[in-house]
């Protein structure tokens, strides 16, 4: 019962505190960004600037083919302003490409440089027999070796053979239950990890440092209530706040798609784990100012897996040592239809166990340092 009284008191205090409204405000900001700033799916369309260094007849044939593929079968003559110079181009737009034909290699270089897009010169050498087609690419410098190698492969193989080989390959899905997340939905796991779990770590430490500063902990310490009840009441408030803020984000974005029961379980266990870290920090430092460096380093470390999540090509082994990696993976499995519930349950069990260890450790440390 004392735990219940402490919890309701903490809930009342939280509803009258600054931090609670920061969390709500932050959740609403995330929701607005997700709904209005992040498109349902990012555009896959690429932009290319091309210069055709070939006889007029060959260029005409090339342009005729572009015209066929163009969405409105029209070549648009236009001018692109680069600094103070107007560069004439012919514009074609297909389903997945925006192509600008330019009139000189100089213009191509200027456009590729200023627009930070791919530029290519397609040259047909008529002085040899049979004529040879060659390609010169103007890249931006950040392209991966994989892409550069792909260009080399394409231009050193027979395209017809390559196309036939691709067509002949059979691809079978092991599971047909999976649905692919939209680009907007894809951002949700990392946002939930930050908002639902990691913010809890910071806020619970802030609550305890505030109590330390006001001497309230001393008053609590001379009652017949235990330290663990004090810490657990704070943890429960953080959990409730995290459920509320997660609901604010997830319901409008995902509707009825996620498994909400599984999400509730995962929120509680990961929140418990993150709160445990916050409790430990508040036990080892006297004030928020003194703990700031530790909190900052932890927050950054916990956010690194979110970077790896958005850049599939970057996933060093040590990322998997960070708990946030598994929190993101867990949320991904929950929101995707046909996600691996067993994996989420296993993760929940792991976070519950780790959270329990942290909580016991923090309670023991707080008993010694809460009042000092």
């Amino acid at each position: 019962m004392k735990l219940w009284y402490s919890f309701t008191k903490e809930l009342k205090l939280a509803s009258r505190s600054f931090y609670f409204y920061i969390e709500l405000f932050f959740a609403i900001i995330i929701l607005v960004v997700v709904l209005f700033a992040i498109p349902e799916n990012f555009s896959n369309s690429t932009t290319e600037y091309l210069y055709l260094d070939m006889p007029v007849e060959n260029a005409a044939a090339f342009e005729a083919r572009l015209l066929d593929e163009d969405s409105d079968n029209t070549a648009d003559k236009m001018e692109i302003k680069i600094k103070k110079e107007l560069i004439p181009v012919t514009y074609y737009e297909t389903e997945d490409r925006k192509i600008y034909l330019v009139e000189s290699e100089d213009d191509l270089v200027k456009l590729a440089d200023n627009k930070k897009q791919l530029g290519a010169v397609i040259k047909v050498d008529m002085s040899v027999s049979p004529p040879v087609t060659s390609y010169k690419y103007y890249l931006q410098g950040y392209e991966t070796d994989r892409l550069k190698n792909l260009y080399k492969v394409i231009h050193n193989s027979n395209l017809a053979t390559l196309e036939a080989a691709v067509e002949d390959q059979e691809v079978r899905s092991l599971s047909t239950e999976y649905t692919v997340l939209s680009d907007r939905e894809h951002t949700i796991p990392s946002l939930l990890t930050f908002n639902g779990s990691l913010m809890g770590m910071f806020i619970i430490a802030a609550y305890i440092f505030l109590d330390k500063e006001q001497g309230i902990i001393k008053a609590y310490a001379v009652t017949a209530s235990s330290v663990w009840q004090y810490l657990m009441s704070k943890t429960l408030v953080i959990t409730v706040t995290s459920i509320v803020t997660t609901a604010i984000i997830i319901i409008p974005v995902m509707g009825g798609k996620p498994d909400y029961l599984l999400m509730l379980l995962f929120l509680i266990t990961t929140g418990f784990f993150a709160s445990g870290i916050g409790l430990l920090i508040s036990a080892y430092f006297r004030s928020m100012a003194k703990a700031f460096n530790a909190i900052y380093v932890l927050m950054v470390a916990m956010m690194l897996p979110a970077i790896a999540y958005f850049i599939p090509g970057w996933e060093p082994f040590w990322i998997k040592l960070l708990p946030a990696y598994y929190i993101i993976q867990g949320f991904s499995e929950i929101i995707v239809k046909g996600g691996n519930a067993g994996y989420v349950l296993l993760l929940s069990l792991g976070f519950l166990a780790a959270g329990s260890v942290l909580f016991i450790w923090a309670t023991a440390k707080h008993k010694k340092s809460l009042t000092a």
Partner: protein
Amino acid sequence: MIKVKNLYHSYSKDDKYAVKDASFEVEKGEIFGFLGPSGAGKSTTQGVLTGLLQLQKGEVTVAGYDAKKFSKKMFNDIGMSFEQSNVYNKMTAKENLAFYAKLFDVETKDPQELLELVGLGDKANLKAGDFSKGMKHRLTFARSMINNPKLWFLDEPTTGLDPAIAATIKDIIWNEKKNGVTTFLTTHNMFIADELCDRVAFIVDGEIKLIDSPRNLKLQYGAKFVDIEYIKDNDSARESLSTVEAKDRNRIKELLDTYEIQTMHTKEATLEEIFIKVTGRGLV
């Protein structure tokens, strides 16, 4: 009610002791004053007695509980009023007391009655954050009574209060004594100690210099004086003379025989004067 034997405490956990070899006992129903200047070791001792500081060295028993393994149950019998007010600013006075009442396993007092007792009855529904320093102090004091404590720790209970409110607080302490409550009073206010305490301990630099009742201390250390105001050469004169020393006694006789006496008062040494005499230190 309290037994302390050879208590030592060091914050740096070396031989720089904040409390050194302190030994004393407090009887049931007694008001025991722990007196000393700031930094003398009063709060440290009280911290160990209330479990706010861990016992490092020595033997301490509080309300029958060994300080080496204080039980949470012990706090059902203990009340603690802090010098620095530490209430929930975002809760009303009544909410503060009602919440603390729920943290004990014993019968508790009615929050409204307690607020009336300390003169905050009409402020029950105001947030503590809007209170003045004195009002917060009274709320902290009232909170220490919520669980009907048998052993009551009071740290500077009248600090920052106006004389009328301070008198009310003194009356409350006195009434609780009549109800059998044992009080451990930490203060540097010698007037409060003199009025309320059955016995006082003088502590300086972590060491207890002396323990006795204010009356015995005055009898033992306080020289008695007489202040005499008289008319001499058509002008008013005044002398303070010892009633013990022979030379002064003769002078008193001479003044009585020779001059017109206007006023004459006997004067006892104050506890503060005795403290300075015994410890060689002031109280600031």
